[in-house]
């Protein structure tokens, strides 16, 4: 067999991995790959307007489809622009492969033009990374990168690819298997440990299932649902777990934690058994650690041993894949009544429901509810930015299906939602994709409006425009004496800066401004009917807060309520 270039090996290898879409931005040292793909229509290259947009799009694609997202950037500044997105994917365990061009091998370490040590920079924020120094290693490296990204606890993998390696030639043979001595994730749960959980359920009077993003990652929503229904145990999910259990089920407690429902937090704090599945006891979930679920036996099912007993001491750990372990448990469980417990939960649901002041004013929670009401029976994906918009979107929309919620949980990356929505729309062309945004975070990657318009991706951007960086302002209101340092966006009379309607129009998108409650549903319907991307600029109540709220460092049953 003849020799082919590194660039050709690269493209062939990606095809062997089933890659259909790449999000990226060109530059000097990845021209050989671009040239190789120029006549190729098997893989679609989506040109974003910033590398950060590309990496978030790859991430959003991965979250919406379950496939590995792929992004590409040039060396130096192109590559460093990926860093926030790689860290975002790393914190949320999202499988992406990021490819960066690198300067010529012989120039590495020489402060060459557009040189940055990407394997060094991304070492703590990738699951693994590679610098390819020999074209003969390229196919094997790509095989390993995709394998590592999608297996075990998924995560981002970076491949740094010097330009000379793209041009050097080698024989191409794509490896069939991967053999990594130090990487053998455990999928099957230990049967003895599983039995211990079953026993604990039998003894328990007040059990709660606390499910995280691992449910989504391992495609275990169905298994979780049948586990909960078979055992009659209520379920709360983390922000990352939204959609992993149908929130319209009577067993659902909604989300727990800092902005979780009061009844979820009370249930967790009063539980005598917590079954954590694919979740990691994040500080936004546990609040003050020494008071978290202190009467409960903690069982924890996770594929990552380093998640177990990291923050909360676990009594019954099961290392394994959530789907596998749930399947095993479903064979062994029996239905129990837990009557008194369900009665108590019902009481909490009645006493401290998730509510907001639903008056004549244009409130953000109402808009989120209307998105759901006006798109009933449609395939909808909700992406969000970060801050109040994200929490309202998490609280006031009822998620029933996995991979319909796309949000930066762990890193909390502003500017994530819109490019992630682009990736989601590419992966799910039939879905209606909304980006629920604030007027602050939407501006962090607004340039991607050009991508959405040129690629004809009909994303519906919902700006909950309050003229503030709302979540920080809320903290300042509650804990800093209303001293709104740096959080006022429409200061010095500069309201409507920018004018989002005109901004949308300047990109060739549709812009709508909504100031009245009664116009909300109509605007959303118009936006959905519109073929291209739409910005809906909702001018909302300026100082609306997200409640309930657990102040940082407090016990999670110690909540602030807006209305009580």
């Amino acid at each position: 067999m003849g020799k082919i270039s590194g660039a050709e090996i690269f493209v062939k290898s990606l095809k062997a991995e089933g890659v259909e879409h790449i999000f990226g931005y060109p530059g000097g040292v990845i021209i050989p790959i671009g040239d190789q793909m120029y006549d190729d229509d098997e893989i679609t290259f989506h040109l974003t307007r910033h590398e950060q947009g590309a990496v978030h799009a790859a991430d959003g694609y991965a979250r919406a489809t379950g496939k590995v997202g792929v992004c590409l950037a040039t060396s130096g500044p192109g590559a460093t622009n990926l860093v926030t997105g790689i860290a975002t994917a790393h914190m949320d365990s999202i499988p992406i492969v990021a490819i960066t061009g690198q300067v010529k091998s012989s120039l590495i370490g020489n402060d060459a033009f557009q040189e940055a040590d990407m394997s060094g920079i991304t070492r703590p924020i990738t699951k693994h990374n590679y610098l390819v120094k020999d074209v003969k290693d390229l196919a094997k490296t790509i095989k390993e990168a995709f394998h590592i990204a999608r297996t075990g606890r998924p995560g981002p993998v970076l491949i740094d690819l010097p330009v000379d390696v793209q041009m050097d030639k080698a024989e191409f043979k794509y490896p069939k298997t991967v053999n990594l001595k130090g990487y053998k994730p455990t999928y099957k749960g230990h049967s003895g440990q599983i039995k211990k959980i079953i026993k604990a359920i039998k003894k328990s009077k007040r059990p709660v299932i606390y499910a995280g993003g691992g449910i989504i990652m391992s495609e275990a929503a169905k298994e979780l649902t049948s586990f909960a229904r078979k055992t009659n145990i209520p379920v709360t999910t983390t922000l990352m777990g939204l959609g992993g259990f149908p929130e319209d089920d009577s067993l659902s407690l909604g989300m727990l934690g800092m902005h979780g429902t009061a009844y979820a937090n009370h249930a967790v704090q009063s539980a005598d058994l917590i079954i954590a599945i694919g979740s990691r006891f994040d500080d936004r979930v546990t609040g003050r650690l020494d008071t978290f679920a202190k009467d409960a036996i903690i069982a924890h099912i996770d594929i990552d041993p380093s998640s177990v007993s990291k923050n909360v001491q676990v009594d019954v750990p099961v290392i394994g894949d959530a789907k596998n372990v749930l399947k095993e448990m479903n064979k062994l469980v029996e239905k129990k009544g837990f009557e008194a417990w369900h009665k108590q939960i019902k009481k909490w649901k009645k006493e401290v429901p998730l509510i907001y002041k639903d008056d004549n004013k244009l409130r953000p929670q109402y808009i989120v509810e209307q998105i759901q009401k006006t798109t009933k029976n449609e395939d909808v994906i909700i992406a969000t930015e970060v801050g109040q918009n994200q929490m309202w979107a998490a609280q006031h929309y009822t998620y029933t299906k996995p991979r319909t919620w796309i949000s930066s949980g762990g890193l909390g990356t502003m500017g994530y939602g819109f490019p992630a929505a682009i990736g989601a729309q590419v992966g799910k062309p039939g879905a209606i994709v909304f980006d629920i945004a604030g007027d602050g975070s939407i501006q962090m990657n607004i340039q991607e409006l050009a991508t959405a318009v040129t690629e004809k991706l009909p994303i519906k951007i919902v700006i909950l425009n309050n003229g503030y960086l709302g979540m920080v302002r809320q903290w300042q209101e509650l804990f800093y004496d209303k001293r709104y340092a740096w959080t006022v966006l429409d200061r010095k009379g500069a309201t409507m800066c920018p004018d989002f309607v005109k901004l949308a129009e300047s990109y060739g998108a549709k812009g709508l401004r909504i100031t009245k409650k009664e116009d909300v549903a109509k605007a959303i319907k118009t936006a959905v009917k519109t073929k291209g991307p739409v910005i809906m600029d909702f001018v909302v109540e300026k100082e609306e807060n997200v409640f309930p709220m657990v102040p940082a460092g407090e016990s999670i049953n110690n909540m602030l309520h807006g209305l009580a």
Partner: protein
Amino acid sequence: MSKFVIAVLVENKFGVLARVSGLFSARGFNIDSLAVGETEDPEVSRITVVVDADEKILEQVKKQLNKLIDVIKVEDLTAGEYVDRELILIKVKAESLKTREKIVKIVDSTKAEIVNSGKKTLTIEEARDEHAVRALIELLRPYGIVEIVRTGKIAIKAD
């Protein structure tokens, strides 16, 4: 905080040492010593790390080490019996004949060895465990230590 001796078996590749040491530095742990060498399998290297750490955080570091793709095995030797050695070279001032005789006597009374004899200095090699190394340093200190070079501890589980 207490001292731990951790052995990490890794793939013999570039970049692995940085990944391993990065997990310690990211948590603000100072590595006391670190020794790397090939094992009986040329594709596998062994890193021996001595670190002063909080036990609970170290537990997490060990799990994180295991998570690294290039790490094959992590062993906390401090959890059981182990044999350790460190090679140390001590260059000590020895200008007068009298001093030189005294130093030779000290060295003879131990298992150390004089490996270089300069006009004004003697260089002594010691390659035993931590206690022997520390004792020798203290015996030689009064004569004026010019320079100490040490390899860092290596350790193996005792059977």
